[in-house]
């Protein structure tokens, strides 16, 4: 009987403590405490992610399969430290390729200043579409900064700690992006469906929208800079009784395989303070 009571007491205390942390966090009183806890955990997360990407690159590069097999045969005689070193070098080479692609993207908008940051993880909750990146306010990142990949828009920063930040992807249902269609010049709003599918809403009925058309940010609203590619129109739904057309969008970014992203650090978002 006593044992059950003590367990219930412990459970109640922990739930109350959770509730207190919930309230303190909402009030913004846990900022510095979170920094202390998150820093080592983010470091561990970055270490695991780098190993994961290196292993995945090894396993999913069929064009290099024979070369890799030969190299693996060679490496079998060597010790674990050397193997680890080779994995690290391969990862660096893959990173260099990505950085080259990101640099090419950055050259298309030379007026922007970028910081390249590695992706260290996904949101642990499957109900939220956000990623964690391995840099924070230490490297000048701030709330609201736009995030791009080598081909286009990824999302925006919604939480910043000293050494880690969280990026809300444009595929998250809470995200909304003002866009312009490249050919028809029509304006619209990209919203994500709960299944991650992107749709362009609020397209004028007069606009002649065709599949394949490139969709770019318009800069309206001041949340994202203009002219960043978002995706291509896949199909258009036009109904006479509706005020606007709606289109399905295929994003230009492969959100499943993001390894490094660019943060645009000199863009002044109108939405620079997190909602309470």
């Amino acid at each position, binding site marked *: 009987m006593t044992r059950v009571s003590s367990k219930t007491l412990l459970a109640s205390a922990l739930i109350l403590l959770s509730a207190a942390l919930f309230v303190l966090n909402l009030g913004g009183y846990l900022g510095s405490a979170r920094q202390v806890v998150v820093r080592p955990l983010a470091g561990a997360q970055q270490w*695991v992610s780098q190993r*994961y990407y290196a292993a995945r690159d090894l396993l999913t590069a069929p064009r290099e399969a024979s070369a890799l097999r030969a190299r693996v045969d060679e490496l079998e005689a060597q010790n674990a430290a050397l193997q680890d070193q080779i994995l690290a070098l391969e990862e660096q080479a893959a990173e260099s390729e990505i950085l080259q692609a990101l640099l090419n993207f950055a050259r298309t908008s030379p007026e922007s200043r970028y910081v390249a940051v590695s992706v260290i993880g996904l949101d642990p909750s499957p109900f939220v579409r956000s990623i964690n990146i391995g840099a924070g306010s230490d490297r000048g990142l701030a709330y609201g900064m736009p995030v791009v990949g080598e081909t286009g828009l990824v999302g925006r920063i919604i939480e910043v700690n000293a050494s880690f930040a969280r990026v809300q992807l444009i595929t998250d249902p809470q995200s909304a992006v003002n866009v312009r269609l490249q050919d028809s010049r029509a304006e619209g709003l990209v919203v994500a*469906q709960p299944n991650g599918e992107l749709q362009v809403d609020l397209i004028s009925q007069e606009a002649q929208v065709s599949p394949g058309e490139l969709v770019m940010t318009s800069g309206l609203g001041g949340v994202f800079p203009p002219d960043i590619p978002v995706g291509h129109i896949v199909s258009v739904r036009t109904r006479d009784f509706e005020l606007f057309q709606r289109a399905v969008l295929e994003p230009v970014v492969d959100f499943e395989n993001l390894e490094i992203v660019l943060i645009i650090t000199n863009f002044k978002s109108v939405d620079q303070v997190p909602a309470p």
Partner: protein
Amino acid sequence: MSLLLGLTGISLLAVLQASLVNHLRLVDGRPDLVLLAITAWALAGHARQALLFGFVGGLALDLFSAVPLGVSSAALVLVVVLVSYSEGRFWGVHPLMQLAAVLAACAVFYAAQLSSLWVAGHPIDLPLVLNRIVLPSLFLNLVLALPAAQTAEALSRFFTPGQVTA
């Protein structure tokens, strides 16, 4: 089992969940390592330790998530209370009852996360969430439930060799 070792282990599981396990998907569902570990440890007869591990593991998960801080920890504490009901005898009457315990644990965990996100204004399409996330995650968790339970039993025997567990 050393409490410090367990707390470190559960924090590492949270890191693995955020960096590695989230890439292992079935539709949009994914296994929940921390939830499975907590449930298995509670079923192995270590309810009070599991309460603390659930609290710390939940905080570690929330630190890397858009889910408000404290929600996962409270949910995991509730999960332990549920699965340690009647000191584990209720779930221990048959090995398959462990699957039912994981089922109940998932229900509590997901309901808490979804409720908090809904309250925070996150759009939730319940049928879609059920089909694409909850059911696939549940399937993956059920597949991993028995190996997790066996691992917890083995760890329990290793750390507390003299103790007879439920």
